[in-house]
């Protein structure tokens, strides 16, 4: 923290911006990674990447893209946390990782009470393969199984819900049959999942189940956001580039390729020659990549590094040091957070903007 304070008062920030700009000017293929920042930080990262022809990834891109890949293959029907709390008379908690993604889930969805808007209804809760972190919900119907079994259980459940026959010895067959009946009998059912905890096949199965149930009743998915403000960053990526994270500007116009622009792959294969690592929300160092390269780190104070980056800029924490817009899982929407402990620490957006301004257009590749 001492160093962060010193940066605020000296010329250290100017020097670091200049060093970062020098590294990026000399680079042939830079990648901006981590990107755990607010909306303004994400927009600034895309503007910088556009200028210098860099690629952009996000620390939770794999989970965010799991949801998006199912959406753009087949579509989906979803709802919001507010709507689930207000009207869901059946909540299916599917797969592990829900409480990690949203620690306040039980309270926010008011799972111990009837739907807040329809209090005359009962709220039924079903917990499927919660892994090690099942919420404490007396009265919930629970299937405890290895999360690896989730795709098979969902396949059985979907078949039963669609009225198809399944093998009599299907694992958890009789419980799944009761759950399928409950799903069909619900007035407004909601299935909750976190793509960080399950595979794409399970996400697709849940979206398909939701779709099937809407033939007769109302049902919707509630997908929990991945960490590092992934949902907020994906939105900024959408209006800035037309794509979610993992885009490259090497040819000018943005190209989206989840494999090609995976920062870890780019670094470890030697394609990337400089990385910009952004972790403004939490003190998190870059991953232990199996190849070293110059790193420009824009990180929250307190971040500890195994190997010191080429350039370290301490940036403010969005919503703590400076006002910010972040995706709020409690709202299912972007929200404006006023700084809780305003400081002079520059925001990631400020620093990225200054780095971009320090790179002449003709030097941009």
């Amino acid at each position, binding site marked *: 923290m001492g160093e962060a304070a010193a940066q605020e008062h000296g010329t250290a920030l100017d020097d670091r911006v200049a060093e970062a700009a020098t590294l990026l000017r000399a680079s042939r293929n830079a990648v901006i990674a981590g990107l755990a920042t607010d909306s303004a930080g994400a927009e600034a990262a895309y503007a910088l990447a556009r200028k210098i022809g860099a690629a952009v990834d996000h620390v939770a891109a794999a989970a965010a893209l799991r949801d998006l890949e199912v959406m*753009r*293959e087949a579509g989906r029907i979803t709802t919001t946390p507010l709507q689930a*709390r207000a009207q869901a008379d059946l909540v299916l908690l599917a797969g592990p990782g829900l409480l990690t993604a949203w620690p306040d889930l039980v309270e926010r969805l008011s799972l111990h009470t009837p739907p807040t808007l329809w209090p005359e209804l009962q709220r039924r809760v079903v917990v499927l393969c919660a892994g090690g972190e099942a919420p404490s919900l007396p009265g919930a119907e629970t299937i405890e199984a290895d999360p690896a079994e989730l795709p098979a259980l969902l396949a059985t459940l979907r078949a039963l819900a669609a009225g198809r026959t399944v093998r009599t010895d299907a694992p958890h067959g009789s419980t799944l049959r009761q759950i399928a009946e409950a799903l069909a009998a619900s007035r407004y059912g909601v299935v909750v999942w976190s793509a960080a905890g399950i595979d794409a096949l399970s996400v697709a199965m849940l979206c398909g189940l939701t779709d099937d149930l809407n033939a007769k009743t109302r049902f919707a998915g509630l997908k929990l956001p991945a960490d590092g403000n992934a949902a907020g960053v994906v939105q900024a990526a959408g209006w800035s580039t037309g*794509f979610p994270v993992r885009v490259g500007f090497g040819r000018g116009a943005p190209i989206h390729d989840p494999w090609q622009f995976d920062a870890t792959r780019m670094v470890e294969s030697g394609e990337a020659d400089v990385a910009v690592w952004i972790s403004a929300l939490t003190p998190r160092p870059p991953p232990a990549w199996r190849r070293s390269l110059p790193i420009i780190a824009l990180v929250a104070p307190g971040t500890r590094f195994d190997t010191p980056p080429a350039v370290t800029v301490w940036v403010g924490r969005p919503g703590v040091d400076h006002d910010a817009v972040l995706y709020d899982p409690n709202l299912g*929407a*972007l929200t*404006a957070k006023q700084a809780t402990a305003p400081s002079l620490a520059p925001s990631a957006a400020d620093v990225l903007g200054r780095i971009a301004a320090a790179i002449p257009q003709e030097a941009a590749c």
Partner: protein
Amino acid sequence: MLTRLAGGRVVDPANGRDAPGDVWFQNGRIVPPPDIGKRPDAEHDVAGAIVLAGGIDIHSHIAGANVNTARLLLPELRGDRFDGTPVSHEIGRMYAAMGFTMVVEPAISPHVALQAQLELAAIPFIDKAILCVLGNEDYLLGLLRDGESDAAVADYAARTLGGARAIGLKVINPGAAAAFKENVRRFGLDDVVPRYGVSSRAIINALQRAADTLGVPHPVHLHCSNLGMPGNVETALATIEAAGDMKLHLAHLQFYAYGTEGPRGFSSAAPRLAEAMNANANITADVGQVMFGQTVTISSDVLRQFNARGQASPRKSVILDGDGNGSGVVPYRYRRRNFFNAVQWAAGLELFLLINDPWRVFFTTDHPNGAPFTAYPDLFALLMDRELRARWIAELPAEAMQMTTLGSIAREYSWPEIAVMTRAAPARLLGLADRGHLAPGARADIAVYRPGADLAASFRNAELVFKDGMLIARNGQMGPAVFGRVLNVQPGFDRAIESRLGAFYDHIYGVPHTAFDVPLHAVAHPEPFEAVPCSP
């Protein structure tokens, strides 16, 4: 810097002007011609060209969570042949090149207003505004169920408009999104929302009274029920009647201009609808013209979008049961050879040509629902050139053309009518005194077109476009990005609404109602907003 546009045909119907002459401006505003002998600092010879105020589009889906979902849903369509989902910085460039200097995003649910405002802030060159969607929220439906006063509804509307920083109220198939959550699959003007016992008609009327009480310049901007369904002209006609004497704007009227005649039970009923428009001076409408090609439909009419999923092309869609309102994104391709699409195309043009008063009919494709806004140049040409229309008609299915009167209509729009429909009238409809015209004091938002044999080409790239007096585009070549403002109303209201909303949100949703507001600090520009006065 004093600038003179010299010798163009100045078409400024708000001020009764249509003659060759000069337009002078300085410091971002139109100024009177200076004393004889005073030299301008810059002069543009525009002899032979048409000089208009900057265009204003009152209904185009350019921002917000639903538009962004469409972008993320259709990565495979991105590219230079698909204009349905341009990103923010492209939107500003593409509109400005056509001579438009303001665009209204017409469907922002209050809980996602912040995202829409961030997207608008990223759109360069043009001014912007949002309409805030009301009509399906449980709080509002509760007020109506309980027979609360008009003042209570007006306070709620004012609080929500202000929090979202919107310019007006949008009402989308009111009641249907709430009813759909109760598994209702069809919902019309006189259907009633389960549990609340409130009809769509009652919601419309209540919000009309609220807009009137608050003195919001823009009338309630209504997306009627039964969009796209054969025979829905009856819905539109009944809705016009339901408006009573109060002002009402009907969005994308073309999508309600359908009869049930002919062998396929689908025909254009645009002449009947135009007749009703001509007879009811309190009603305005934008057309929502269909043009052929790939697009994507983005609508907060969640029920309609849910029911349209089977027509998705490519075959995928996103449906959201949102807070109060909902939304649906369904990609769609309008085909020339498709009977229904050809009737839709003709019905839209019939509305343009049969509604007599260009002050009450507005130029839209409901971007991207009827077509991307990049189809505007072709649409202008179709309105201004009946021979061009005849050539299009000749190439469309004869069976479809028999279901419309389009081929018999000789009217061609004049430049003054174009100027009314796309400049003067939108500014008046939105309550913008200093836009849409070229009198001294107006903003120097100016578009210069040089008409040639290919009218569409003239509209595609205006010869010169000025925003606040700055030259931003010349023949499609853009200058450095500048940023306009977001226009919004902040009507007054009784502060007691804060505690009532607070209590409702705390219990029903478990979150503070203020969490969805758009504070100034959230938008990065130095002067992001401009106030539009209300006159209660």
